[in-house]
């Protein structure tokens, strides 16, 4: 199982130093500690794509109080670890969701609510919505239900926390590894009208934008 501890350059140099000084185990311990801390401070950007947006205020306010588990809402995707997509996604929304997801800093996770991102839900025969969200961005936890109650949403948080704590491979690593698969799918439904990715060299766009 691959580690969820990110920052490969820093990681390997630190590992070398620790091995030199005869503390090879310290690296593993540190990794565990980082994962533990990371699982208890999940910053959320809630992208209300569908009807599930209405389930998020009770989840985060005093009735269910997700903050007691370290799950806190933030203002922008650049500060967030987790994006919640709460319902069906139109092509138009998908374009913005991909943009938002690519703005988030690694490590980043995705939770979706409801049946629609899994297999279209009740909008399966709409000309304007997608069916399988995990063709376009990787999804870590699907919270099912139509709509899921705040208890279920919190269960989804707990499941995600367990995975982070165990250092399991997350969706953003899959996205980096299979970028071509995701980009091809995105191009197929969005017709190539997607913004250049954040790996683009904006000052050399005419040369293909490869940094």
């Amino acid at each position, binding site marked *: 199982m691959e580690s969820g501890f990110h920052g490969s350059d820093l990681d390997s140099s630190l590992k070398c130093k620790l091995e030199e000084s005869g503390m090879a185990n310290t690296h593993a311990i540190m990794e565990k500690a980082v994962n533990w801390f990371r699982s208890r401070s999940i910053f959320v950007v809630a992208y209300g794509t569908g009807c599930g947006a209405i389930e998020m205020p009770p989840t985060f306010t005093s009735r269910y109080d997700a903050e007691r588990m370290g799950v806190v809402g933030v203002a922008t995707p650049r500060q967030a670890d987790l994006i919640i997509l709460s319902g069906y996604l139109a*092509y*138009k929304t998908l*374009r913005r969701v991909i943009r938002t997801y690519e703005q988030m800093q690694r490590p980043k996770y995705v939770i979706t609510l409801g049946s629609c991102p*899994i*297999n*279209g839900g009740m909008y*399966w*025969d*709409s*000309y*304007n*919505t*997608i*069916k*399988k969200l995990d063709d376009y961005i990787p999804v870590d936890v699907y919270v099912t239900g139509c709509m899921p109650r705040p208890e279920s949403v919190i269960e989804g948080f707990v499941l995600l926390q367990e995975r982070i704590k165990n250092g399991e491979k997350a969706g953003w690593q899959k996205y980096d590894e299979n970028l071509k698969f995701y980009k091809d799918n995105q191009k197929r*439904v*969005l*017709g190539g*009208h997607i913004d250049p990715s954040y790996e683009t060299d904006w000052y050399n766009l005419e040369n293909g934008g490869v940094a």
Partner: protein
Amino acid sequence: MIDLSSKLEKLSLELVEKNAHLYKVTVKLENLESILLSFLNEFGYITLDSINCRDDLEEGLFTITYCLQTEKRDHVVMVQTSIDRENATLPSMHTLWPQAEIMEREMHEMFGVDFPTHPSLIDFALEYWEHMPPMRRDFDTLEFVNSMNPFRDQRGDNLDVKVEMKKRREEKKAAKLKAEQEAAAKLAAQEQQNPDSEAQNNE
């Protein structure tokens, strides 16, 4: 309403009463602009509720309906006209009612009706739509959906409920039968042993 019908008679138009609050006038396309102008300026229909489009595929027509209201809001007048479906073109009404601009943009996107005098005929709800306008009746939604978004493959452990329930019932029945048989055998064995135990007890 009687005064409106008398006014319309001068324009040789007939006012059809649908109910107490709903009336209909059918006009020709070439008269549409002037009649709507007189509805606004002379008859006092200051509000354009909506512009609706109906796809009459069999007749090869689009039926366009302008819903108008006066300041009193006590009734609605529908001004109806028909245009050719293949080469659908309408004059823009944004100079009479500003809200027509966005309604016409929607109609352009959903039905492919062209408005040559429209100031901003850009995307409305859909983005970069390259296919047939989706509200046209000859647009095959199901085929489009299946080609764009196929269903997820069924899960490997997705079981047929009827078959599974039947199997489960049969298993239950067999288990019950087996238990009965075992109980009977046990009883028979006990009966065989009983004379000995009784004999032992007697001793």
